[in-house]
């Protein structure tokens, strides 16, 4: 990256710059050196205005070890010549870190970053280009089912719905023609037709019931699942009955009670159930769920195989390998979708975080085919449903899918071998760590901190302030050659990245910084 200008080279450049002969330049530099040394030694200080100041300091006796023999010796007192660059020069040299300010570590936030600095202080362990392993929160690695149920009720619900959706599709097709004339014995949701929202909520519950019944069928308990087209009048009757029964409870509490009943396994223990489903609503619901379903499927399939062990512990198999960019795209997709819908309400806060946690942590990646996506999501859904009575179903699912899982495993291994042999052919991703910053992350990734502009250019638009990037942002790592052996194309890319950063700083209101990056774009890529 940086070049060494030895004496003759410097003299040559100086001669060209000043328009004088090489010998003149040589004698000038020698005279300057002599004067500076002389003055510095005699007066203890010599200044070259516009460049820097040389000072002589005295060093006292100190103990040291003899290199090689390891003997302890006393280094005698001596004088040392120090150089302090002029402020302007110091700033110029430090243009990369110029904008960084000392951080107060006495605040709570500061203490955190302090420990982070200490943890990351051992830079020797990071070889250049090494992947950054983001620590996985323990709760993501191993989550017991009970915990799952407590914390992720909403999540469980969602996954069940997804499974339900796929199954209901079939049910609707095949069961609708043979609508039974029998009256609905199942309790309809009380607020089912109160408003559109509650209708949907009721639909979700019904779907959930269907899926549980389906599971029962799988395990041998023969349960008839029928979907009735329109049972409005009957339902209204029952609904009104119910209302009168529990009038004092009020709408809101009623709703929550129906919600909590979702998790009660005994609820679906009836022998026969006829579940009312409004077709139009169902279609609407399914079309919206389709999108989410697709996204979730791919994420589940890629996130790592989720396996169920006998003690109902969910663990992520980290051997699965996923290209980071793919994860990133999927994360974007799902987060975008979440924002667009009311899903936040269903998932509860922090869902996205939970999803993204393990996917980023899985350092090895694999891209399974779409056929293999399906079983994984179903398996996950089966697990998440988490009711004791369904455990046998899960095992059935698991055995059904074990073949697919094995296939995926072998594929993963193959992909792994491929990627290791072909080196940096696939783009990777890391999580942004604000405690060390893009600059030091580039140091870890490329072995050259100044290439952080490439990271920035790849991942952010110019409207992002480079000094204010959210913690945990997933970054795609652009592939470049080793610093020092840049191709013309990569140099051009670096130039563009520098200009990109300059523009970003311009937008962030940091004019002078933008200017320095703009000027850096002129010469810096050529040094690579």
């Amino acid at each position: 990256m940086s070049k060494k200008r030895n004496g003759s080279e410097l003299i040559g450049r100086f001669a060209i710059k000043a328009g004088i002969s090489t010998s003149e330049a040589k004698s000038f530099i020698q005279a300057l050196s002599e004067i500076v040394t002389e003055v510095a030694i005699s007066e203890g200080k010599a200044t070259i205005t516009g460049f820097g100041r040389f000072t002589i300091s005295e060093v006292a006796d100190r103990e040291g070890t003899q290199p090689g023999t390891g003997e302890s010796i006393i280094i005698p007192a001596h004088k040392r010549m120090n150089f302090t660059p002029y402020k302007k020069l110091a700033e110029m040299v430090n243009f990369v870190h110029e904008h960084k300010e000392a951080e107060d570590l006495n605040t709570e936030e500061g203490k955190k970053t302090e420990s982070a600095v200490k943890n990351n202080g051992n830079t020797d362990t990071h070889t250049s280009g090494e992947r950054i392993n983001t620590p996985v929160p323990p709760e993501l690695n191993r989550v017991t089912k009970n915990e799952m149920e407590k914390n992720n009720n909403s999540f469980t619900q969602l996954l069940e719905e997804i499974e339900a959706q796929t199954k209901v599709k079939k049910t609707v097709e095949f069961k609708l023609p043979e609508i039974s004339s029998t009256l609905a014995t199942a309790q309809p949701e009380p607020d089912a037709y109160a408003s559109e929202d509650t209708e949907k909520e009721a639909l979700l519950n019904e779907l959930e019931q269907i899926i549980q019944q389906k599971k029962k069928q799988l395990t041998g308990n023969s349960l008839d699942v029928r979907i009735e087209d329109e049972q409005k009048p009957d339902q209204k009757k029952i609904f009104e009955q119910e209302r009168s029964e529990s009038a004092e409870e009020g709408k809101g509490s009623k709703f929550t009670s129906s919600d909590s009943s979702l998790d009660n396994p005994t609820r679906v223990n009836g022998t026969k159930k006829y579940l009312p489903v409004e077709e139009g609503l169902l279609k609407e619901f399914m079309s919206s769920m389709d999108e989410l379903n697709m996204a979730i499927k791919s994420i589940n399939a890629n996130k790592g195989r989720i396996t169920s062990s006998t003690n109902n512990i969910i663990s992520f198999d980290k051997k699965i390998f996923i290209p980071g960019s793919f994860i990133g795209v999927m994360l974007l997709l799902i987060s975008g979708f979440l924002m667009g819908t009311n899903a936040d309400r269903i998932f509860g806060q922090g869902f996205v975080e939970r999803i993204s946690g393990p996917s980023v942590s899985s350092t090895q990646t694999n891209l399974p085919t779409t056929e293999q996506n399906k079983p994984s999501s179903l398996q996950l859904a089966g697990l998440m449903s988490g009711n004791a009575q369904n455990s046998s179903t899960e095992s059935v699912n698991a055995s059904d899918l074990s073949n697919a899982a094995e296939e995926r495993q072998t594929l993963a291994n193959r992909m792994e071998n491929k990627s290791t042999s072909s080196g940096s052919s696939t783009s990777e991703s890391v999580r942004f760590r604000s405690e060390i910053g893009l600059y030091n992350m580039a140091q870890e990734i490329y072995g050259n901190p100044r290439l952080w502009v490439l990271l920035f250019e790849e991942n952010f638009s110019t409207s992002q302030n480079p000094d204010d990037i959210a913690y945990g942002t997933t970054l795609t790592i652009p592939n470049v050659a080793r610093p020092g052996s840049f191709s013309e194309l990569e140099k051009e890319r670096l130039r563009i990245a520098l200009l990109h950063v300059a523009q970003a700083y311009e937008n962030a209101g940091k004019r002078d910084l933008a200017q320095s990056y703009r000027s850096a774009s002129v010469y810096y890529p050529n040094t690579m």
Partner: protein
Amino acid sequence: MNKARLVNELSTQLSLTKNDTEERLAHLIDLMCQELKQQNTIQIPGLGQFETRERASYVAYNPHYKKKMRVPPKVIVQFTPTKAVKEELKGAGL
């Protein structure tokens, strides 16, 4: 030593006009600054070597205010005098 004195001494030693000396000195300083800015190492015969080095971020403690501060990383200029200069320093005594 200020600039005027340096130019004066240089011009007498090189038998150049003060204007010429000043101009050349300006060029030299500019060249050295530009090289350092590009993170290049420069060697000046008879004086020493200037190189840029990255100083890592560290935690500083101010005992007066009992405050801990994280000092950001910095690129600094490091100067290593030539052997000749070191010998002269030794010869200068304590």
